[in-house]
């Protein structure tokens, strides 16, 4: 269990001079659970491979507990790696699969037994130790793979999309088990995924990458409420943040032009006076919008319900707003509220949920 630092790390692939990772700097504290999230091509997998020692670092340094590990091989770094594909030894039973990394390092007898049983207990594998991997369902195989990765108390645990293809029920159980295991064993974990929901579920802090670069690092709450740029605002959250074209009226107000005149919105926070009169983009999360059936004056805009998608505990409405661009916007409403296609409704944006962007840049200081 270590503190892991990346200092100005670059990965440049010689073929075609492709930049995989660009000047990446962040720290994963001891016992922290970090998730690196980004779309494909964002550099997250290259970062993972450099941390694991599977790929050379072109420039910069990776440090474990203050010591540079650039030139150490994967075994010397003592990094545990669990992939989505289980890669278990099918000719060995579950016990021997888990014991494998210990035996490979010369550990013997009672010591191996103690460690295998300890980790098996934590992952609920005690009853299947004698079985062979191929006789187990996918969820259990995944747990065996995790147990094998974690049995030798690694300095750093790297998880590469380990649960993205599990079914609903298994996924929730694995999520819970991974989080609990991390806490019980005091691990330092870095989890790489393209799935923002998975990342949000498990991590203490989130590292958002895009086009080989770090976009933002922070707690889920920070990233949710104070995204560093428009990409982060859009990428984190499903359904994604709505963007509506507007203009700054004064230091506390923006407006959205509509064929029936301006709709004004008070926002919370401060902006630079130079933006007064400027055209900007208003961002609002679908999960934070209040929806009314009757006209309200303050901070509202009308819309017409276009599509209704029931999701069980909630419903997602897609609405044609009454602004000049007829922007399509989404809102998440409780499932007990019934709407019909063509209903006129009012979206209310509370001052604290309003984000403002000048191009990619957020302009409200909070």
């Amino acid at each position, binding site marked *: 269990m270590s503190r892991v630092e990346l200092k100005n790390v670059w990965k440049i692939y010689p073929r075609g001079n492709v930049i995989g990772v660009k000047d990446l700097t962040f720290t994963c504290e001891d016992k922290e659970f970090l998730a690196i999230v980004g779309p494909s091509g964002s550099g997250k997998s290259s970062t993972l491979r450099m941390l694991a020692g599977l790929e050379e670092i072109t420039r910069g340094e990776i440090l474990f507990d203050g010591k540079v590990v650039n030139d150490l091989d994967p075994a010397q770094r003592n990094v545990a790696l669990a992939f989505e594909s289980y890669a278990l030894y099918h000719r060995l039973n579950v016990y021997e699969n888990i014991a494998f990394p210990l035996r490979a390092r010369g550990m013997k007898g009672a010591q191996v037994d103690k460690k295998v049983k300890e980790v098996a207990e934590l992952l609920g594998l005690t009853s299947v130790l004698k079985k062979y991997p191929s006789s187990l369902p996918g969820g259990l195989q995944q747990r065996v793979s995790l147990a094998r990765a974690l049995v030798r108390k690694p300095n750093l645990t790297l998880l590469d999309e380990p649960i993205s293809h599990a079914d609903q029920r298994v996924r929730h159980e694995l999520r819970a088990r991974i989080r*609990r295991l991390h806490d019980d064993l005091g691990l330092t974990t870095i989890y790489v995924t393209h799935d923002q929901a998975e990342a949000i579920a498990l991590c203490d802090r989130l590292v958002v990458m895009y086009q080989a670069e770090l976009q933002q690092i922070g707690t889920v709450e920070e990233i949710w409420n104070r995204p560093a740029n428009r990409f982060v605002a859009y990428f984190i959250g499903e359904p994604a943040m709505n963007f509506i074209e507007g203009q700054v009226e004064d230091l506390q107000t923006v407006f959205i032009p509509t064929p029936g005149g301006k709709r004004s919105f008070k926002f919370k926070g401060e902006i630079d006076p130079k933006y007064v009169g400027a055209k900007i983009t208003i961002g609002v999360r679908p999960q934070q919008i209040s929806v009314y059936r009757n006209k309200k004056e303050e901070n509202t805009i009308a819309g017409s319900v276009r599509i209704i998608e029931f999701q*069980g505990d909630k419903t997602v409405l897609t609405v044609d707003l009454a602004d000049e661009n007829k922007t399509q916007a989404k809102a998440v409403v409780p499932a007990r509220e019934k709407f019909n296609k063509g209903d006129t409704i009012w979206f209310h944006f509370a001052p604290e949920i309003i984000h403002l962007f000048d191009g990619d840049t957020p302009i409200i200081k909070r």
Partner: protein
Amino acid sequence: MAEVRLENVVKLYGKKRAVKGVSFTCKEGEFFSILGPTGAGKTTILKMIAGIEDITSGKIYFNGHVVNELPPQERNVSMAFESYNLYPHMSVYDNIAFPLRAPRWGLKLSPQEERKRVEEIANFLGIGDLLERLPQHLSGGQKQRVSLARALVRKAEVYLLDEPIAHLDARLKFSTQTLLKEFAHNYKSTIIYVTHDFREALALSDRMVVLRKGLIEQEGTPEDIYYRPASDFVGRLVGDPPMNLIDGEIITKDGKTFFKTGDFSIRVKDELVESMEKAKREENGRTLTRLGIRPEHIKLSRNKISDDSFQLPIYTIVHEAESSVVSFELEDTFLYVRTEGFCDYEESEKVWLEFDQNHMFFYKKTVEISK
């Protein structure tokens, strides 16, 4: 547009019964989903409706006429397969235009008219800039949308869509789902839709069936399926997290009925006792039943909520946007509770739980729930 009716349809592959007697009606203009796990027989049903697979017994009707003997091209259906089935030597444009050129439909579109139709559906699905490419130069998600565009480009009596968005990444999946719903609204098309993903089925369908090993387990609106699952199987297939299923003992004492497990005991309100009795089973001399409750119908608090509440230690907490899922480890399963907003409970902390008995169900045991 057509109404499609299945009457006791059976499909045998040798001795294996893939579909064991399925009946349902998809009304004209309806979006009708078949939801089920892998191997339930979903695709087989779709292929029988399309005419690609023979029907072993039973009848399929289009607008009241039996179509059992009609070959696929006589049925006027349009189908998208999960496995894309694109013509590798044709451009995306030609792949999408293919059904418009089939002599069978006698459309005889002018090149301009054809281009208009192809571009319209391609732009709608966000692949308008890929028209000149060959399939081999597309990602899986792009191929899937081309396959979907090809299925939707021609007006058909019935659209049969088999997992048409399964291979899209999460973001694209949700947006394409919205587009499909819009397509269905705009064209009032009859659509039969096969999926293993309950979210798609709930969001898209007017009505749906849940299929299990070749038989219909439940038929209804998405609300019926979500709020009133007919069995533990349906409850577990639908929901995120799925419905909690807990096995326990029925105890009667002083005229009161209790549901008791190794972890907790609750009094069951009188209105539910009858349904509980119907779902009882005997095991090793004990009277057991299975309780089902959705994660959002359980209340959590640091303080005692009521006499019906009980305490459990938290296993762990995972967060979602604007909500949290708190898990508890029970003797034979995990229990999940969804809370609104970010919650500040801690691992191992003991908290009070209360089940909302208006949303509590009792089931016979038909699925395994072990951890």
